[in-house]
């Protein structure tokens, strides 16, 4: 479980998040919806302790990580998987090495088990034949799947997805969404999906928080979103895609 308690964050003089409180439960998929530049990626980075808030607390599985040092945060982060908005694949490593990175690095699994899991993931993501390629020679959708596989392969109990479907064609994005919803059925995982595409929310999320101008203007189950009265939510429901 991840909890944000009254979190505020500024970049220089610009206030990005104003007193935000948010709870992410295990075994459920939560969407964070909001226009571009509102601070969605920032929230995910806060949850991992990659950046620190100016005030407020971030609590992961009962531990307050707000003022933890970088070294003590590593253990907390290893429980979570993160899919970065720009994938952030290690570009000097092959696809297999990218996928196996966490298993070798942190779980110190025997090489045989690493290879087994990597092969399984390659098949799952439909990347057969690309095992020894570098990320640069893959298409955007393929890289996305590698990034997702890299986060899923070590079976974390919470995965943070930053815009998993942005910039993908409808077929690829459908594949990725069904992959995400299968997580819940197969592995009993919790997940956070950051997105600005409202269809994604209806497709996979159990509950949704809407972030607008630094504040959470809605935080409830996905069905209730239809009944929300906030003008911003009304406008996105009618347009379906968020443009500012």
């Amino acid at each position: 479980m991840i909890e944000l308690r009254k979190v505020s964050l500024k970049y220089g003089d610009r206030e990005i998040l104003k007193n935000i409180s948010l709870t992410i439960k295990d075994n459920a998929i939560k969407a964070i919806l909001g226009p571009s530049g509102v601070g969605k990626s920032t929230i995910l980075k806060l949850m991992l302790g990659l950046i620190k808030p100016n005030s407020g607390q971030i609590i992961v599985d009962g531990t307050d990580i707000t003022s933890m040092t970088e070294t003590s945060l590593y253990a907390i982060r290893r429980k979570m998987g993160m899919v970065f908005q720009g994938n952030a694949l290690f570009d000097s490593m092959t696809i297999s090495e990218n996928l196996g990175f966490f298993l070798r690095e942190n779980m110190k699994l025997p090489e045989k088990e690493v290879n087994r899991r990597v092969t399984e993931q390659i098949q799952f993501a439909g990347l057969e034949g690309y095992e020894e390629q570098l990320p640069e020679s893959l298409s955007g959708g393929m890289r996305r799947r590698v990034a997702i596989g890299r986060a899923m392969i070590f079976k974390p109990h919470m995965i943070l997805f930053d815009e998993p479907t942005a910039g993908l064609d409808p077929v690829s994005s459908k594949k990725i969404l069904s992959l995400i919803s299968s997580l819940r059925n197969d592995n009993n995982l919790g997940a956070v999906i950051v997105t600005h595409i409202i269809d994604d929310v209806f497709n996979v999320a159990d509950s949704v928080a809407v972030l607008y101008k630094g504040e959470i203007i809605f935080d409830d189950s996905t069905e209730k979103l239809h009944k929300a009265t906030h003008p911003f939510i009304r406008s996105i429901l009618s347009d379906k895609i968020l443009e500012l």
Partner: protein
Amino acid sequence: MSTQHLPARALELIRIFQEKLILELKVFFFTMQEFFWFSTRAFVAIPKAKRYWRDVLDQAKICGADSLPIVMVSAISIGALLAIEVGNLLEDFGAKTMLGRSTSISVIRELGPLLMGLMLSARFGSRNGAELGAMQISEQIDALRAFGTDPIAKLVTPRLVAALIMFLPLTALSDFAGLHSAAYMAEHYHRLDPGIFWNSVYPRLAPRDFVVGFLKAPVFAIIITLVSCFNGFSAKGGTAGVGRSTIKGIVVSSGLVLIANFFVSKLVLENM
């Protein structure tokens, strides 16, 4: 003239200048503090370096084997140049037999290590700056952190260890090449008998000449690696930012190499 007589505009300018200066100083000290922590963490992770032995080997190849040509070229040219110029000078005093002594001291103590340091900060330093800078702006360093891996232990310490190991043999090879190119020039340009040349080299070289020269290798290794990696880690602002941080890394590490070169020589020569 009291400040009251100054036009308001000038006072305003002075105030702005003061504020800027204070801000710059703050940034400078903050950066220094960050650099200090960065370096400490790189050193603290050295015992764990064997976990990343593959990275150490890769980096050893990059800063050792791959840098060998440029280091040799600079050593050979500096040796040859010294032999020619110093030979001309000594000839005026009729002291050409001292050629070996003067060139060998310059090569081993000063110019050899210095030139090698500058070449390596251009070659190894720029590579570190650009590579780590690109990793930083594409969030690969954040990805390492997100996976619970210390990016300093994984990326910086192997480079530091590799440089510490490889700079010593590079120094030895560069000394060897520099001396032999000097000897070659002494023989073929100044028509000095090789026996005379080498006779003035070996018996006169004191241990401290080697201490000075070889102490510079690890000092430069530390300066070049930490400065260039730190600048790579601090890159921000897209591809132009990577360029800026790479340049900054090279400029600062070359400057520090020049300064350290002076102080190592001074300290050792005063105390030995």
